[in-house]
């Protein structure tokens, strides 16, 4: 198994478009890393550069201790699972799994035993003599994973492997892939995984570390809890978490150790935190997770109460998302189902009172969007 190191990796297309801007990171041996971002953030390009399907314009790519910038895909020790599975339609499942091993020139019995082991692991033994067209989406997916596993690669690359599955299957495959990673680790065969997705839920649930990308640049590379609790900027803050974090225009006044925020016509003192701010009066963006927005609740401390109108409500079963309007701004609140009664009687346009728990707020620079908390 091996680590993957990217050193100032860049990609410029022949038409001059720079898709990847000097990316630097190191993925440790046996780690499960997720690359996540909206469409066009170059996450797939980056993965394909690691795989060797896309050329690297500049920088250095290392798998293990070897620089593999110019190595052909087969010499990189990586196996890839494609979004639409890319199974060979004219070969049976067994041949699909064995194809790569045969090309490597492994002896027949070794090929057969590896195929069987992978099939057992993924519970596809009964499918071995079928053609890909006779498989369902979930089965094809497992065969595609199997085709990667049989090669015992140093690095597994997943390119949005679950996006063609329905929601339920996607959730179960998510667990399966994570379990598989753990299982291999426990069996003493830890494998490095790079997993690309645009779905932040997938990223948060699967990744040991997550790399958030936007327009070919890394926004933040950290553990799921750090991304959620200490987002580096407004982009990460609003990308991670569902429903999205509320990001509101606000004004910060600094007077010694006293800090006051003014927003939506109200103002409140902020509890003491380390902030890297210059000047005494400045516009900021204030981010607040929906779970930190209270509705019609009692007299909690450090809460800024605001009068607003309700816009609409979404019932999710165990919880309720309520959307409020204050002037031009929309604020989302996430309530446990036990509090659903607070909003369920309300109709669009009804008055309500919401409380912003500023203790949990994130402050961002109004222009650059960078988190003002000094840990960043």
């Amino acid at each position, binding site marked *: 198994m091996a680590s993957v190191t990217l050193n100032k990796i860049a990609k410029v297309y022949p038409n001059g478009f720079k898709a990847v801007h000097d990316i630097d990171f190191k993925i440790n041996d046996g780690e499960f890393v997720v690359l996540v971002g909206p469409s066009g953030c170059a996450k797939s390009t980056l993965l394909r550069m690691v*795989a*060797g*399907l896309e050329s690297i314009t500049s920088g250095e790519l290392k798998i293990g201790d070897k620089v593999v910038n110019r190595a*052909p*895909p*087969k010499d990189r020790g*990586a*196996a*890839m699972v*494609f*979004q*639409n599975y*890319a*199974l*060979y*339609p*004219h070969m049976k499942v067994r041949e699909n799994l064995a*194809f*790569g091993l045969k*090309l*490597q020139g492994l002896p027949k019995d070794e090929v057969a035993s590896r195929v069987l082991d992978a099939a057992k692991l993924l519970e596809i033994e009964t499918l071995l003599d079928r053609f890909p067209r006779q498989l369902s989406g979930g089965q094809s997916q497992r065969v595609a994973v199997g*085709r990667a596993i049989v*090669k015992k690669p140093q690095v597994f690359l997943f390119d949005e492997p679950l996006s063609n599955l329905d929601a339920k299957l996607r959730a179960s495959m998510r667990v399966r892939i994570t379990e598989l990673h753990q299982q291999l680790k426990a069996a003493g065969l830890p494998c490095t995984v790079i997993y690309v997705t645009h779905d932040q839920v997938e990223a948060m649930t699967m990744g040991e570390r997550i790399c958030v990308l936007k327009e070919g640049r890394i926004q933040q590379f950290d553990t799921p809890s750090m991304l959620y609790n200490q987002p580096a900027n407004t982009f990460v803050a609003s990308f991670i978490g569902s429903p999205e974090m509320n990001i509101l225009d606000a004004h910060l006044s600094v007077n010694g150790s006293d800090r006051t925020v003014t927003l939506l016509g109200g103002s409140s003192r902020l509890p003491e935190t380390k902030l890297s701010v210059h000047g005494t009066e400045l516009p900021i963006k204030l981010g607040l997770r929906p779970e930190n927005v209270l509705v019609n609740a009692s007299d909690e401390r450090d809460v800024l109460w605001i009068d607003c109108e309700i816009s609409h409500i979404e019932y999710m079963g165990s919880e309720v998302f309520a959307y409020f309007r204050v002037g031009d701004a929309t604020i989302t609140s996430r309530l446990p189902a036990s509090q659903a009664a607070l909003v369920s009687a309300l109709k669009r346009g009804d008055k309500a009172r919401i409380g912003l728990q500023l203790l949990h707020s994130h402050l961002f620079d109004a222009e650059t969007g960078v988190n003002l908390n000094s840990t960043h």
Partner: protein
Amino acid sequence: MSATTSATGVGAVDHYEVRKERLNTIIRYTLLITMGLIMLYPLFWLIGASFKSNAEIFTEVGFWPSRLDFTPYIKGWKTSTEYTFTRYFFNSFLIVIPRIIVTVISCVLVAYAFARFDFWGKKILFSIMVATMMLPQIVLRIPQYIMFQHFDMLDSYTPLILPSAFATDTFFVFMLVQFLRGIPRDMEEAAQMDGCNSLQMLWYIIVPLLKPAIISVIVFQFIWTMNDFIGPLIYLSSVDKYPVSLALKISIGATEEVEWGSVIAISVLALLPSVAVFFAAQKHFVDGVASTGLKG
């Protein structure tokens, strides 16, 4: 009560709809079958006439022969030359089979290059290739003849086969390129990850995926080469090397009085290989034609 009424009402409408639909179907099929029979009439006439004598051919209007007489077939097969049609059919296959093999190999290789690789001048080369499709074959005959004369290849099958080994059947290249462009590249990328080089990729992945298009190429090339008359006429001078198409011609001209019955009988036999190949490949062939957007 009201429920029953409405139920029968609905039933009546359904019945009417069904009858209308059935009538429509009958009209449609009658029309199509009639048109089909009209178009097939010459073929029926040909088969019927192959059993007739000269007198009957020119006097009777109907295509049904008065008796089932196989002597035209036997006479025609023997020919007025020293060889029978066994020899001529054999000669035809000596041209057709090697030509198909070299066509498929060369066209697939060239199409693969055009569809999947980036190389200098690709666009210009491709447009030149497509432009040669517009060039009438007849324009090339004289220079080609002189060239093969210099190579000392006249009166052999080489001039009929060799050009195809260089993917000069641009129509096939074009068809294969279009077909390949329609195949997603993911499988090739997967194969690349599995460790295929370019030629392994072609053999293990592309060729199986191209199968319907390759079968179309085989069928077209078979029929066209089998029916080619000008090519053998120009390059072949010894009768013992004649293919069926030329042999048919000499069976018309060789004797003073033409035995039309025999000529027609051999024409019917000459049709058989093409028809057989077409039906054998029909399923795949239609696939290929449908997915290249090409009319058969």
